[in-house]
């Protein structure tokens, strides 16, 4: 094999090792430096560049909201078990099961409304522009709002219906 080719291939392998090592170490360092385990609100401070006063207000809102959220989650979990019991052993959706499903949906809607109220309060504790951005981002993540997926699905379903 040509000596120059061996040198170039060896250099290429060495370059890949150097680059890969540097990348892996830096990624690990960057990840561990920015990660703040135990602080659930770290993302808000990093993403929306909040100061200590804003973070203190948001921390209080967050602390008030968590017990309400936990209570609502317990109610939803209990209602899910009721729905499961109503559906157990039947091949049709009985009126009792339908009633339980409606109650579960109402609880979820109540919980979502409470969650959205909390997001609104948090956004109001922020400066206007980050607040708007936060609200839009949370609605997108939790409710799927501001996403074109359902719109595109409804369009494709309309096409499908048109064909049939």
């Amino acid at each position, binding site marked *: 094999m040509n000596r120059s080719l061996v*040198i170039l291939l060896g*250099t290429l392998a060495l370059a890949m090792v150097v680059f890969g090592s540097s990348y892996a170490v*830096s990624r690990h*360092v*960057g990840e561990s430096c920015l990660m703040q385990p135990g602080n*659930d609100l770290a*993302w808000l401070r990093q993403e929306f560049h909040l100061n200590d006063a804003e973070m203190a207000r948001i921390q209080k809102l967050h602390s008030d909201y968590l017990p309400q959220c936990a209570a609502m989650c317990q109610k939803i979990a209990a209602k899910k078990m009721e729905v499961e019991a109503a559906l157990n052993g039947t091949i049709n959706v009985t009126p009792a099961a339908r009633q339980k499903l409606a109650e579960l949906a109402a609880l979820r809607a109540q919980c979502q409304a409470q969650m959205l109220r909390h*997001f609104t309060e948090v956004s109001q504790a922020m400066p206007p522009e980050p607040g708007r951005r936060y609200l839009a981002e949370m609605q997108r993540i*939790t*409710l799927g709002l501001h996403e074109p997926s359902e719109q595109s699905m409804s369009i494709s379903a309309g096409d499908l219906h048109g064909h049939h």
Partner: protein
Amino acid sequence: MCYTNDHARLQYRDGRAAEVIIPRLSACTDTTKVVNHGRRINTAALQPMNEENMNPADEKLGALLRASRVSPALPPRFQDNVWRRIEDAEAPVPSTSRLFWLDALAALVLRPRFALAAVTMLIVAGALLGLRDGSQIARRDAQARYVAVVAPDSLR
């Protein structure tokens, strides 16, 4: 015509012919030299003393030399092999430029200043890219943690 010399006839591939005559020690006066394209050059004039200087001892010596001269048979496909070697020698080497660039690149890579600059650049590029990706991963993880706390999976 007296052929007391060694004759060889080469046939060019384009149809030309050449005859090569190698003079021997001989009493024959019709001495010729290399002939090209059918032209024969008489070199008898260049050897005016051959006949006059011949004596019985020289004739014996000549006979002995002729007898001792070994003319081995040419190996098979000798002429083809000769032409092939000539063509190989005259043919351009196709990989010369590639080899040249490989050698030049290898020489460049082995220069300490270039190697140091390249290693530094690779380390810096890897570090920047790694820090960027690491911060993005940390940001995604932090966001996921916050969302998991404020919006349980049952609501999404």
